[in-house]
């Protein structure tokens, strides 16, 4: 999980990529350097060999093959080291070795001088063989081990530099990556805060003038705009509420006065009915405004951490009697201390609406169970007729009543869905086989 999270961070990916590119660059540079150094050292060595051969050839011109053999012996005697740096071999045309410390014959053919590499014992030689007058063959070689040593040193220093560079790059990119991650996380947090109802949350872009700062600036401007819209929407709905309710209140007071001065029971019944209608209209306003307010993200505020189990237990106690009155077998399964963040009164309403729904629509004799588990996961399930698959989404829409003639405005479950969404939860209805199950649980993380 952690590895996936790390890999999903743009900053971390960027850092790793740049380290890989840098490593490849250092390696390529090392290969090129080694090749160059190797080439020039080899050329130097060959030059030394050629000079040596020239000197030896001179001595042969002066004193013949015996003089040459004596010189070669001088030289091989002189190199007293365990592993000789110079190798010689002088052979007759018949291939008999006259002098030299190179015991193994080296493949030489033709009359031409020939240069090459050969492995002798545990050393690699660079050699040149020359055909001399009289059919003699002179081979002069030099040990390549100094070249190998230099090559090793170049590799070692490049490896050292490479490691240091990777370490530095890691350090630098960790710093930038974590800074970048912090800034993005800040932006993320601000947006989440706003979504949870803290409409004053802004990113307050820092000193930087980079793309991220510009993005943060745009986010702030957008949040300003949204906050303004929400405020306007609230003001408008408050005005509508006030302006529409006031005439209804006047109407109600008139009806009250009429009731006071009336003695006709038929008229009294009509007047009472008219007042009941006013109540119904007003409560519809309230329900719609509550819904709009919740949808505009107004219910959460900064939120508190509260015990959902306690709320559920209290409500279960309140509804126990109603459920029994309605002939329902009501039970609960409430895990202790299910804590969550949000607005406790809104979550109270959510559960109350679900239980209201069960008490109203589940037929007598059936079971209803309220479950609260960690998550939070809240279930209200019954053994009633259930909800047809086609209607399971519809029940959460406004003004949708599945059962005809029910009281209420058909807004209860719509409010459940909105309150759930404001708490990062989803509400859905499913088949409890038999019966219906209303599930409130955390939205699946993307």
């Amino acid at each position, binding site marked *: 999980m952690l590895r996936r999270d790390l890999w999903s961070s743009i900053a971390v990916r960027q850092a790793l990529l740049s380290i890989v590119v840098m490593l490849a660059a250092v390696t390529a540079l090392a290969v090129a350097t080694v090749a160059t150094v190797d080439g020039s050292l080899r050329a130097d060595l060959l030059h030394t060999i050629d000079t040596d051969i020239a000197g030896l050839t001179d001595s042969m011109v002066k004193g013949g093959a015996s003089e040459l053999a004596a010189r070669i012996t001088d030289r091989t005697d002189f190199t007293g080291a365990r592993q000789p740096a110079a190798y010689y071999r002088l052979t007759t045309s018949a291939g008999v070795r006259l002098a030299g410390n190179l015991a193994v014959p080296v493949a030489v053919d033709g009359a031409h001088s020939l240069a090459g590499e050969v492995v002798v014992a545990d050393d690699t030689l660079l050699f040149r063989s020359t055909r001399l007058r009289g059919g003699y063959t002179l081979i002069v070689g030099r040990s390549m081990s100094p070249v190998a040593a230099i090559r090793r040193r170049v590799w070692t220093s490049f490896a050292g530099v490479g490691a240091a560079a990777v370490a530095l790059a890691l350090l630098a990119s960790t710093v930038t990556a974590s800074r970048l991650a912090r800034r993005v996380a800040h932006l993320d947090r601000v947006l989440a805060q706003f979504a949870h109802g803290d409409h004053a949350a802004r990113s307050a872009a820092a000193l930087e003038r980079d793309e991220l700062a510009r993005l943060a600036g745009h986010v702030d401007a957008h949040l300003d705009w949204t906050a303004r819209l929400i405020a306007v929407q609230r003001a408008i709905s408050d005005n509508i509420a006030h302006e529409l*309710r006031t005439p209804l*209140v006047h109407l109600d*007071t008139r009806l009250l006065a009429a009731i006071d001065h009336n003695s006709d029971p038929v008229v009294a019944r009509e007047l009472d009915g008219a007042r009941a209608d006013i109540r119904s209209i007003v409560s519809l306003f*309230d329900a719609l405004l509550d819904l709009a307010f919740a949808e505009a993200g107004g219910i959460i505020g900064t939120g508190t951490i509260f015990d959902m189990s306690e709320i559920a237990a209290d409500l279960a*106690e309140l509804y126990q009697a109603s459920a029994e009155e309605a002939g329902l077998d009501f039970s609960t399964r409430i895990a202790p201390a299910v804590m969550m963040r949000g607005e406790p*009164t809104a979550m109270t*309403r959510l559960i*109350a609406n679900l239980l209201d729904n069960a008490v109203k629509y589940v037929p007598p004799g059936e079971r209803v169970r309220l479950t609260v588990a960690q998550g939070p996961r809240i279930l209200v399930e019954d053994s009633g007729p259930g909800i047809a698959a086609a209607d399971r989404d519809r029940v959460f829409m406004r003004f949708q009543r599945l059962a005809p003639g029910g009281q209420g405005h058909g807004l*209860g479950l719509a409010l459940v869905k909105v309150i759930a969404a404001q708490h990062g939860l989803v509400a859905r209805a499913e088949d409890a086989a038999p019966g219906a199950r209303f599930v409130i649980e955390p939205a699946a993380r993307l």
Partner: protein
Amino acid sequence: MHVLLIEDDDQIAAAIAVALAREDIGIERVGTAEAGLHRAGGTDIDVIIMDWMLPGLSGIDAVERLRDAGIEKPVLMLSALGRAEHRVEGLDRGADDYLAKPFEPVELVARLRALYRRTSVQARQPVLIHGDIELNVRARTAHRAGRHLGLSPKEFELLKYLMENVGEIVTREMLLRHVWGLNFDPQTNVIDVNVVRLRRKLEDGFDSGCLATVRGCGYRLATSE
């Protein structure tokens, strides 16, 4: 009880005046929050009814000023804004109760009496006695005529609230708020059903009833012995 009504709407003010006069509650009305603040400190004022939306200074701001000025008289907020959130805001900002328009006159009177009673009976008694019902607030036990009543915690709270408001009408909304701490009206008759249960425990095996239903608005614990 003498009430100060701060309300700019004449028609509503008149209706309130009629309702209170019928209950022998004295009333004095002003039309603005400023005038109301001026009058609120008067020693003859027991309870204040404050409209939320007034011309000039709003009612809710006026309540805050009242509290800042150290006047702790009970305030009943009256509002044409009925949403649950307004209720919470009103109570948070210093009002003692909140009633949305339109309201039943009997509901208004019941709220006023409960507010008045709460301030006049300040002392929290450890034992409430009414007739043959005895409620030990500390031990959370209830007895009637010496017989123990097995009440659930909420039933105990319900009986306690009724006893604190003995002889007065207690409405469903008042019970929802004070006993269950809910600030919205459930769609089902949960309160009635719970009161019926309490009544059964209270009256079963006794000759006399004591918890009366007031048709259409609430309940009353009878004062008669």
